[in-house]
């Protein structure tokens, strides 16, 4: 009997470890639900947007890689274009208090206005819970969730890891490729890529 309980305990521990391991959202998994407040203090849950495509864009306006995509207006154009097509675009900032890219709501409102950014919402994740759950490593780091709530893309915004604004034009944009394929009912051919950028300032 004792031997069995040891066996069961080890099995529980083993399975437990397995759960910890798979805790980070992977492509093909049900995207973990979350609830975060936006810069206007309004709460958004992922489950609010069931039935729609959702883009999660990890961001830090002070990171040179993010600057590349905002100074070139690439990111704003994507937010506008896909927003018009009914896609829910959520920018998320996981910078911890005191770290780069962390701002209070009022400053955020000004910054978003200055950038002329138009995501559906800018969500604040100062304790990094949602960032860690999704395995967000860099800014930018892009995630796409389909109307069934499945994570269908995770990775870089494009294939040119650099801070040069001029690279935006010649880069192959993985996000638009994934969204266009998925919205046309096709499988995403490049569903996981290696992200590039600044590290998320957890």
């Amino acid at each position, binding site marked *: 009997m004792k031997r069995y309980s040891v066996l069961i305990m080890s099995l529980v521990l083993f399975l437990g470890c397995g759960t910890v391991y798979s805790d980070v959202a*992977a*492509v093909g998994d049900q995207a973990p639900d979350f609830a975060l407040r936006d810069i206007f203090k309004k709460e958004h849950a992922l489950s609010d947007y069931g039935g729609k495509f959702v883009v999660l864009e990890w961001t830090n306006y*002070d*990171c*040179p*890689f993010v600057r590349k995509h905002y100074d070139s207006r690439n990111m704003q154009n994507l937010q506008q274009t896909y927003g018009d097509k009914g896609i829910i675009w959520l920018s998320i900032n996981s910078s911890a208090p005191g*770290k*780069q890219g962390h701002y209070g709501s009022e400053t955020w409102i000004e910054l978003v206005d200055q950038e002329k950014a138009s995501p559906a919402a800018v969500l604040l994740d100062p304790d*990094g819970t949602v960032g*860690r759950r999704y395995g967000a*490593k*860099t800014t930018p780091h892009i995630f796409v969730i389909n109307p069934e709530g499945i994570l269908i893309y*995770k*990775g870089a915004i494009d294939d040119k*890891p*650099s*801070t040069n604004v001029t690279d935006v034009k010649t880069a192959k944009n993985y996000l638009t490729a994934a969204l266009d394929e998925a919205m046309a009912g096709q499988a995403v051919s490049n*569903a*996981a*890529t*290696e*992200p*590039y*950028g*600044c*590290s*998320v*300032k*957890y």
Partner: protein
Amino acid sequence: MNWVVGVTRVFLLWLAFAVAWQGEVSATVDEYPPVEAELVSEVLSVRPEEPFWVALHLKMGKGWHTYWINPGEGGLATKVEWRLPDGIEAGPLQWPYPVKFETAGIVNYGYEGEILLLSEMKAPASLKDGDSFKIGARAEWLACKKICIPGNAELKIKFVVRDLNSGRRNRWAETFDKIRTELPSDFPGWKVGANAEGRKIRVLLEPSVRSAARLKEVYFFAEDKAVIDYSAAQKFLKKGNVYYLSLVKAEAAAKKAPSRLRGVLVSQTGWEKGRPEKALKVDVPIQ
């Protein structure tokens, strides 16, 4: 009148001092620039047909780091674009093995303090005693501490041609010697293999000579992106005569499995008794 001039002078002096002092303070606060870059040479002069080593020397401010050929999770590899005179050819950029930085679970590969990124130059036979030429480079890097600042520089170094046998090593030569021991090398006394199973990539290391060092701690730096999961633990164990290092495949490699494992294995106890090199060059098929 004199009194007014005097006061004005004192005021102007004070103003100049205050401005200078403020400039000083903000420079300290921003620690800018975080990186100093220059081109350095191992030799004082060049001989026709004799290869010579040139390097990009990066000196990072305290706490700042720049990145290896594969920066890991985030970051950006330093880039060197040579501007060479006719007849001079640059060999591939040689990267000393990096160190691993881990901040809040995010893993990066790079360098702190000072580093040389080396290249071996080929000199043509047509060089004449007394000739001089310049080698230039555009260097681009990303330096990070708590924040990241991209930097770049147009650099130049001048060479003269002297057909001398000795007295050609300059003050950098010792640093070149030291850095060369940090470049990944081949150790024929070790058999290296790799195989994949599910999400795991297993590296096998088998010593075939008696002079092989005993391994205690080994870490693999992958040279290619989208091959291994950088933040997954690397498990090292010994079974009989063979060592195993277990890596986790990158999520981005889930669909299209990588066919080769390329990079650097660093052993804290080295690879061969009596040799200082810690970095073993890995370039093997994944079976």
